[in-house]
């Protein structure tokens, strides 16, 4: 019997349009899925059709399209109730089992067929024209089939069981949709489960599961192997299938095979029985008036809105969503501007951003489903004919539903705000900034939702098929997101415009607010027009065909509506024109293509000038007038240029910053010059000097640059010049010669446009770049003087000594002058600042000249300034003692808005983002003091970068950044324990491996590193720590001291013809390294060397004298990797070590070893709370074999043995470096 029902279900579904729409949606979405899901994710050398990527994509897609599963699986039982078929069905001699089984299996088969769209779509996606065949592996259909069975089907089964049962028991569609939300919340929960295994098991979409499984796989394995269906993946799927079965069994037991609703969910319904029949009352109706005026229409609208609002408030499912949304912030791990694992204080803007991100899904669900539910509410209850014959207007009918839904958003937002405030209170933070909560939710998020609700209503009305409309609304969502991603982001045509932009406590919403509001207003008017169309097209009565409704619509466009529509259309045109005038006429709007074309033109026309000899800047003297409130500035003054080449120079090439609001005027040269305006379209000014500049001669170049804000731009406008927190550097002022920063970087784009591949960085013997230092390539050893005027309440800061400060014309002026020569690299900063002042005297300075230490910070951001100040002092102590004296008389840290997240070192100045150090909530017990560390790192650049200038060749960033990492680590150790340093390094090692996995090219060595942060920051820190551990801190410092002494470009005796490279640096290291450790320099800096250490076994026996004998077995293998990540063991076949025991499946292979490694034995912690157990033994052992045994006598009972337990050597699997009893 069940088979008949099963067949009926299939036939029924085959006739439904929905079924096909669902398939097409999944199919089309799947075609672009990999690009959509991995948008902006670096996969490194893993290809986009690698089995792991396909499996993860399918997992994520299943999650994203689970709603469709709920639409299919929720209805099979529900349908009978909806169409009042239940009596007819249940009265038949069908067993409950057959009925449920038939319907379930029938729908499930349909679901599976619909979801095969995943396979076809994803597979077809591989052949789409935008996919680069070189980025793909050979097509392997199994890689699509297999995850469909292993990843997708089990979770579909679980979801189906849940949706089917919830639909059958609740008999409400909305309850079914809500289940999909529960699965989503569950998924979020699993991301927060600390235990990796548990998290892998519980993840319904297998994203965690798959990454756990392949964590230790190498790139070739990831590309080459299908994901086996075993281990955690198998367990996870069995788990979910089991849960699905349990749900089905519960559903089966609970399902009441009769027409009256099951009582298990509700208290007994009171049947209404009339006890007596009173005679009808024959009185006339009391007097009343029927109002039709404006006032009564307002009342009708209000009541109507409240009616729908209340009707949703009565839904249990709505409150389920509210509770989910409220608890998700409490259960989900929140990223609070986390820097190196240290959270910030839960300032309101962090909370708001997280809340918005996490709750977005909930709002979209409510938007999509409740808008459909409301549109169909009367028809669903079969009340529509009564409603439709009422004299209320079309507009009020639809507007009531609309406003009711908006009020619902409001309730959810308020609930979420409450949970945000609770979260802050739990964390002991009480500056709630309710205004910011409200502005962010009701001023930014709500308008977004309102606009999409308009669209959803419009689609529902026009399509007039509930499920089709759902799909279309989802498609519209995805479409507008995709449009933005593809670079079609002009607010005039990208639906709804852009988001409000980042909030900074320094600058508020800044100048981003105005364009946001204008563009929102524009879209609101647009949507209002849509709404009027929706109202007159809304189904009223029994005519549903679009043609009939089109005819009716003309009639239904009542006079007031006509007036509103005309006004709205006029406003729409006016607003659109105004926005267009601002973004495209006052300012320049560039599409992505236009930008690319411009860059290509720049490169093709001007590349010829890249190495044209140009003079160098030796003096900068400028008067800068900042007008923060109007976001303008002028800079007027001169450069002195000197010809340091050996030939005379006729032409001077001046590059103005390419930005339409920047103007360069009044450029004059001593002795006169003629402008060649051939390349002016690229802001490239060529001046032919009247008098040739002879070698060694200098010339004065005067100019005036202005930055003028006109109107507003289409988002992404300049965030350097802002109302409070202006920060820009000299690269905004005229530079000399061709600027390769305008070249297209993306290798694929370059290839597409026929440009030669761009070389990352020059070789270390490139004669031109050796004399170049980017930061100061237009000059070196400049004399610097600057006067900055700004608003009276702001402080403006540039490098050097503040010679004079005065006020004039209600403006504040600051005159800075640098006493010593400095690099041509300076920042200009202005904001309303508080300041903390202190001073430092070099310990070895006999003159006791104080250096002024100042921290300029935003009021309220005092949390970490003491840490920063302490770091400044300790850094100066350490660096001036161990490297060289600090040449300047002041050091300033200035906070700037969080539009960018970095700190940067300029002579005497470190602009420091609001987002990375000032707001960190540092717990000295558990966290590394990152405010302290970052300060030390930036101060180290006053040596590495501002004294030693690194040549612009490979390895440059090792000198600048790796040495700064080392220096900061050593300062960190001055204040904090070794354990903290190791905690920090553990994070660095992890980040290194994360970065390495994303590497798309050859992994460089440190000595040849180009722009790979994961190498020069992360691996650099780990390896420098190892170096000082092996050869001694004093020796490293001695080497660095010599390095600075010889390569300080600002030393009077500096006479080198070029800047420093890693060849030079490593020579100093070699000099101080003992012979038996020389291999380290090669391993750490010149090759990519990996170790795999493992404590295989250990035992301890108590000796008669009370001490313990510890026997340790451990293995060590060492290998180097080539550029494809392949392990190399040596040059030829027979120069490697091999070790294999009977129980091992594959042998261990290693390079020959003459290495040293830490062996550490830990004792029992004295009390439970003590996290660092006593160290009973700690020695470096020389290793020559893979397998090693040791016997060590210690005087206390050992608890744990470690081989390289502090992970000083690069080792991917560090967990087995230690073994405890």
């Amino acid at each position, binding site marked *: 019997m069940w088979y008949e029902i099963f067949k009926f279900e299939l036939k029924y579904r085959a006739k439904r349009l929905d079924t096909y729409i669902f398939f097409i949606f999944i199919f089309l979405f799947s075609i672009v899925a990999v690009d959509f899901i991995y948008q902006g994710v670096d996969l490194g050398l893993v290809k986009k059709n690698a089995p792991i990527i396909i499996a993860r994509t399918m997992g994520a897609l299943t999650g994203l399209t689970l709603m469709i599963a709920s639409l299919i699986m929720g209805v099979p039982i529900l349908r009978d109730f909806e169409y009042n078929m239940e009596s007819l069905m249940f009265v038949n001699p069908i067993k409950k089992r057959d009925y449920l089984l038939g319907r379930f299996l029938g729908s499930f088969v349909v679901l599976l067929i619909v979801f095969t769209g995943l396979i076809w779509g994803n597979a077809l996606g591989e052949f789409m024209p935008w996919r680069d065949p070189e980025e793909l592996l050979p097509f392997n259909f199994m890689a699509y089939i297999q995850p469909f069975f292993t990843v997708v089907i089990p979770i579909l089964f679980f979801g189906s069981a849940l949706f089917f049962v919830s639909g059958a028991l609740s008999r409400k569609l909305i309850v079914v949709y809500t289940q999909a939300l529960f699965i989503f919340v569950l998924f979020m929960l699993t991301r927060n489960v600390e235990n990796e295994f548990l998290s892998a098991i519980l993840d319904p979409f297998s994203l965690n599961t798959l990454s756990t499984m392949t964590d230790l796989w190498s790139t070739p394995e990831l590309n080459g192997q299908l994901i086996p269906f075993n281990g955690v993946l198998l367990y996870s799927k069995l788990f979910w299938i089991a849960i699905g079965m349990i749900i089905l069994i519960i559903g089966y037991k609970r399902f009441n095979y009769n027409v009256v609703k099951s009582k298990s969910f509700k208290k007994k*319904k*009171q*049947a*209404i029985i*009339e006890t007596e*029949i*009173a005679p*009808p*009352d*024959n*009185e006339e*109706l*009391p*007097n*009343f*008036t*029927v*109002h*039709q005026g404006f*006032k*009564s229409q307002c*009342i*009708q609208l209000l*009541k*109507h809105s409240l*009616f729908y609002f209340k*009707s949703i408030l*009565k839904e249990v499912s709505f409150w389920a969503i509210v509770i989910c949304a409220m608890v998700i912030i409490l259960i989900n791990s929140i990223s609070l501007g986390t820097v190196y694992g240290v959270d910030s204080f839960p300032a309101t803007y962090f909370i708001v951003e997280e809340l918005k991100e996490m709750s977005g899904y909930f709002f979209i669900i409510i938007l999509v489903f409740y808008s459909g539910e409301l549109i169909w509410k009367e028809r669903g*209850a*079969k*009340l529509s*004919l*009564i*409603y*439709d*014959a*009422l*004299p*209320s*207007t079309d507009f*009020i009918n639809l507007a009531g539903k609309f406003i009711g839904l908006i009020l619902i958003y409001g309730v959810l937002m308020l609930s979420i705000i409450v949970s945000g405030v609770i979260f802050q209170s739990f964390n002991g933070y009480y500056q709630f900034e309710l205004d910011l909560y409200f502005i962010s939710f009701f001023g930014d998020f709500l308008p977004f939702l309102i606009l999409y609700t308009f669209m959803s209503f419009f689609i529902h009305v026009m399509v007039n098929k509930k499920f089709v409309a759902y799909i279309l609304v989802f498609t519209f969502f995805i479409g507008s997101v995709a449009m933005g991603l593809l670079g079609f982001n002009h607010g005039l045509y990208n639906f709804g415009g852009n988001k409000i932009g980042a909030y900074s406590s320094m600058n508020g919403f800044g100048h981003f607010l105005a364009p946001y509001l204008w563009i929102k207003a524009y879209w609101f008017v647009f949507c209002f027009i849509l709404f009027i169309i929706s109202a007159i097209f809304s189904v*009223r*009565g*029994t*005519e549903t*065909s679009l043609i*009939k409704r089109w*005819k*009716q619509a003309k*009639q*239904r466009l*009542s006079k007031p509506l006509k007036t509103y529509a005309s006004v709205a259309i006029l406003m729409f045109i006016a607003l659109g024109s105004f926005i267009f005038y601002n973004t495209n006429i006052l300012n320049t709007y560039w599409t992505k293509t236009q930008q690319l074309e411009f860059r290509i033109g720049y490169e093709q026309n001007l590349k010829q000038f890249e190495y044209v000899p140009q003079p160098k800047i030796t003096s900068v003297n400028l008067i800068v007038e900042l007008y923060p409130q109007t976001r303008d500035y002028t800079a007027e003054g001169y450069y002195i240029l000197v010809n340091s080449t050996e030939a005379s120079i006729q032409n001077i090439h001046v590059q103005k910053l390419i930005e339409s609001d920047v103007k360069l005027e009044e450029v004059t040269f001593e002795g006169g010059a003629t402008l060649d305006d051939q390349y002016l379209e690229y802001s490239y000014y060529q001046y032919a000097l009247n008098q040739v500049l002879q070698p060694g001669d200098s010339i004065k170049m005067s100019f005036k640059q202005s930055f003028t804000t006109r109107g507003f731009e289409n988002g992404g406008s300049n965030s350097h010049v802002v109302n409070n927190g202006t920060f820009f550097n000299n690269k905004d002022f005229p530079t000399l010669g061709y600027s390769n920063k305008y070249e297209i970087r993306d290798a694929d784009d370059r290839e597409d446009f026929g440009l030669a591949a761009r070389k990352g960085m020059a070789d270390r013997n490139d004669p031109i770049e050796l004399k170049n230092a980017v930061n100061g390539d237009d000059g070196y050893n400049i004399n610097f003087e600057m006067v900055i005027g700004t608003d009276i309440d702001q402080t403006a800061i540039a490098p050097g000594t503040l010679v004079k400060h005065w006020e004039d014309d209600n403006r504040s002026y600051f005159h800075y002058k640098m006493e010593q020569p400095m690099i041509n690299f300076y920042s200009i900063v202005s904001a309303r600042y508080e300041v903390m002042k202190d001073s430092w005297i070099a310990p070895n300075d006999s003159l006791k000249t104080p250096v002024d230490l100042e921290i300029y910070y935003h009021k309220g951001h005092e949390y970490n300034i003491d840490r920063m100040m302490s770091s400044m002092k300790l850094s100066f102590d350490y660096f001036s003692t161990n490297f060289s004296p600090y040449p300047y008389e002041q050091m300033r840290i200035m906070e700037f808005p969080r539009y960018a997240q970095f700190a940067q070192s300029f002579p005497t100045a470190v602009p420091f983002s609001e987002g990375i150090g000032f707001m960190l909530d540092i717990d000295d017990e558990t966290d590394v003091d990152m405010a302290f560390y970052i300060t030390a790192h930036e101060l180290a650049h006053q040596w590495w970068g501002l004294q030693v200038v690194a040549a612009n060749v490979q390895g440059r960033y090792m000198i600048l950044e790796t040495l700064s990492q080392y220096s900061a680590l050593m300062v960190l150790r001055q204040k904090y324990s070794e354990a903290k340093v190791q905690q920090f390094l553990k994070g660095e090692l992890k980040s290194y491996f994360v970065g390495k996995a994303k590497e798309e090219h050859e992994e460089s060595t440190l000595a040849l590193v180009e722009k790979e942060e994961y190498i020069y920051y992360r691996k650099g820190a780990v390896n420098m720590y190892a170096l000082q551990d092996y050869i001694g801190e004093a020796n490293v410092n001695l080497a660095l001291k010599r390095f600075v002494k010889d390569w300080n470009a600002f030393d009077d005796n500096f006479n080198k013809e070029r800047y420093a490279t890693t060849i030079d640096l490593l020579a100093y290291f070699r000099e101080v390294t003992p012979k038996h450790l020389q291999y380290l320099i090669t391993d750490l800096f010149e090759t990519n060397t990996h170790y795999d250490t493992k404590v295989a076994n250990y035992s301890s026996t108590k000796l008669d004298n009370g001490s313990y004998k510890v026997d340790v077995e451990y293995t060590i293998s060492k290998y180097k990797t080539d550029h494809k990540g392949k392990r190399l063991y040596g040059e030829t076949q027979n120069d490697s070590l091999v070790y294999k025991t009977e129980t091992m499946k594959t042998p261990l292979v290693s390079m020959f070893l003459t290495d040293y490694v830490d062996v550490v034995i830990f004792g029992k912690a004295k009390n439970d709370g003590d996290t660092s157990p006593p160290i009973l033994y700690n020695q470096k052992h020389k290793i020559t074999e893979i397998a090693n045994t040791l016997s060590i006598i210690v005087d206390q009972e050992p608890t744990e043995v470690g081989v390289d337990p502090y992970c000083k050597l690069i080792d991917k699997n560090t967990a087995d470096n230690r073994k405890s009893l």
Partner: protein
Amino acid sequence: MNLIINNLSKTYSNGVKALQNVSLDIPTGMFGLLGPNGAGKSTLMRTIATLQEADTGTVSLGNLDVLNEKHEIRKILGYLPQQFGLYPKISAEVLLNHLAVLKGITNVSERKEVVKALLHKTNLYEKRKQNLGGFSGGMKQRFGIAQALLTNPKLLIVDEPTAGLDPMERNRFYNLLSELGENTVVILSTHIVEDVKELCTNMAIINNGHVLLKGNPLDVIADIEGKVYQKTIHKNELENYKKDYTVIADKLFLGKPIINILSDNDPGHGFSAIPSGLEDVYFSQIFNNRG
């Protein structure tokens, strides 16, 4: 103020001709629209109730064009559809109150009084706080009439209101309708002849989209007075009789077939004259039309 329907036609997209040149002049008072299932009654009712478009023809009420001035019509319209549901989770009072707002009774105290009065009138007052989900068919129907009576409509359309009601509920419903003032146009569609006979001053019989007959129930009965004859027959004789006579009805009486025929003079053969009723008019019209 008469409701004048002129040459109204409607063909559905599936080809069903629901209305064909329907013309009616409906005065104030109760008007019965009689016809079998699928005759086009509901289509006509919905068209008058502004819920459906006609292909051709006009409908006017006084000087209002019903088909084009829908909004004006809705202001004076009361409509009880043939089938309708109610929100299960709200009470009669709340829903009636809400409908009253939408009908324009925006003054709070007035609305309260009207709702109260109507709930009394329909004998639902006691149950006003109960959720509509628990209402019986009769109570639901009474709620339907309560909402149709809000704002004292000038035009009241009730589509098959007594279908599925037990006799007691039906009586209660008639009482409600019969109280309506003389100056309201009330159109009652039904396939139950008794309804029309008991309530209506005017009527029309409609089948297959055509108006077959219109007039006062008493007049139309008088027209066939003395022409209806009856006979008890055997089951297998029916076909023969149908050949020979104008059989307008065959039904069972105590398990035996009885046929009614229409004849201008006494047919003899055991037929006996019976007093004619509206039912006979109805069946004779349907029969003729079929023929």
